[in-house]
């Protein structure tokens, strides 16, 4: 297996409504930033892979249009996943492992403001038994939160702490969207959208884009920058029939913790792709993370660009390692209702 390193990462300022900006205008600034960080041009990139979902903005094949943001002459090796760009990163890692590329450019973009995101997400559910009932994203998360509260796994107070910690940490990320902090009274007395979740418990609707460049050890050495290595990465998915899952736990997340051998290292921080407050204490418990800092970047509760937020948790981990006296970080990406699909990434700072 080749060692693979993150060479650069960039994120657009997350906004609630990108207004006119189309996919090209969202993607191009971040792609240019990662080129600037590495001194690369598209000609130095062996493989390009993106993550996005056309349903978000309602524009069919927006992902093809998105390619106009990058140089495609001469023609390039390219792929796309209709998923969070964290999975585009995974495909890129495989491509490099296969020996088909030395470097890869990954980008993810999402423009959720033109549509009604909680109901766009309904289309992810089973089209026979579930989507005809129009369960929205918030309500599906609420079913899991209710169950966890009922079983005594977590409380509203835990959720409030996760929220305030995230918003407070968002100060570390100049691109974050949310900065206002509700008082505990305001939080606890807020009307529920879908009990036990109020609007405070949900990540904000966000528009934006992020990009990353990864490469082999040789590529990383040539750049001469601080080396941040992807030491381990695993992902898994559970049944879409979530009525047959035990929602009070997550076989996927617990299994990934074992696969990544979380017992063998202690991360200095964890970045979780958590779109609802309850998911933070829930995953902290599932992975037995103790009191390690979670979402120092503010995480998705401070800006949640669909199809980029998973890549962001990996990108923010890269930045935290690069800019601080940290040596090891754990990043998480997820997808689907009730944390159906998950990815864990172990990142390490390597000193030559």
């Amino acid at each position, binding site marked *: 297996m080749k060692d693979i390193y993150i060479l650069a990462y960039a994120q657009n300022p997350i906004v609630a409504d990108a207004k006119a900006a*189309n996919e090209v205008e969202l993607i191009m600034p971040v792609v240019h930033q990662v080129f600037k960080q590495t001194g690369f041009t598209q000609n130095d990139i062996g493989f390009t892979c993106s993550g996005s979902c056309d349903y978000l*903005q*309602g524009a069919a094949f927006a992902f093809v249009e998105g390619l106009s943001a990058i140089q495609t002459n001469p023609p390039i090796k390219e792929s796309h996943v209709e998923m969070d760009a964290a999975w585009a990163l995974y495909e890129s890692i495989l491509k490099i492992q296969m020996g088909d590329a030395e470097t890869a450019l990954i980008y993810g973009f999402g423009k959720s403001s033109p549509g009604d995101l909680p109901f766009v997400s309904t289309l992810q559910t089973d089209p026979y038994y579930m989507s005809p009932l129009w369960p929205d994203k918030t309500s599906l998360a609420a079913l899991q939160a209710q169950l966890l509260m009922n079983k005594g796994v977590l409380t509203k107070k835990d959720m409030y702490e996760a929220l305030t910690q995230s918003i407070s940490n968002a100060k570390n990320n100049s691109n974050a969207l949310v900065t206002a902090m509700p008082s505990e009274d305001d939080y606890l007395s807020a009307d529920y959208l879908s009990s036990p979740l109020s609007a405070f418990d949900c990540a904000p609707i966000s528009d934006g884009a992020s990009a990353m460049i990864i490469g082999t050890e040789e590529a990383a050495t040539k750049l001469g920058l601080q080396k941040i290595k992807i030491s381990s990465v695993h992902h898994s998915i559970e049944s879409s029939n979530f009525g047959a899952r035990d929602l009070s736990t997550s076989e996927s997340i617990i299994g990934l913790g074992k696969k990544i051998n979380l017992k063998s290292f202690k991360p200095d921080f964890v970045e979780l792709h958590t779109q609802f407050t309850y998911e933070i204490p829930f995953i902290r418990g599932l992975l037995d993370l103790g009191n390690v800092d979670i979402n120092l970047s503010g995480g998705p509760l401070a800006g949640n660009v669909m199809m980029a937020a998973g890549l962001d948790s990996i990108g923010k981990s890269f930045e935290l390692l690069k800019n601080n006296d940290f040596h090891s970080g754990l990043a998480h990406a997820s997808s689907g209702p009730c944390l159906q699909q998950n990815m864990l990434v172990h990142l390490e700072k390597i000193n030559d």
Partner: protein
Amino acid sequence: MTEEKKDFFVSNISLSYQYTAGNATTRFLNKVAEGKLVAQKCPKCSAVYVPPRGSCPRCGVATEEELELPDTGAVESFTIVHIPIPGNPIVPPYVSAMIRLDGADISFLHLIQEIDLADIRIGMRVQAVWKDRSEWGTTLENIKWFKPTGEADVDPSVFKFKE
């Protein structure tokens, strides 16, 4: 069982959106509302794009320089549509053509009318026929269609994308 078994059911997916045109397209359409066709030029390869999308997809850079093009051009390719398309008010047969405006490096799709269908050909010179100014909006429908100018045809080799 009392009822006949149904082999299919119709899924009921229906979503509402507020689509935005993009900054470059917005600027373009605002000019179209004034009867102008404003292209954008690539700062690297000088290719001229109309309608502009705000980028040069060959070079991967933003296009900012704007230049107004005439409403004349040539037919780069065409098809004669014989099949009615649901929701489309135009009665077949009619000509859909890729029209390369003079000074542009890409073509766009529009209609050609005021022509005998047998006469349509690649390289034919055409000019826009605009709606009455009182009907103009932020849409390319301000141009009803293109019609032949009667000038000599252009050599199709001019359609080659500049290197």
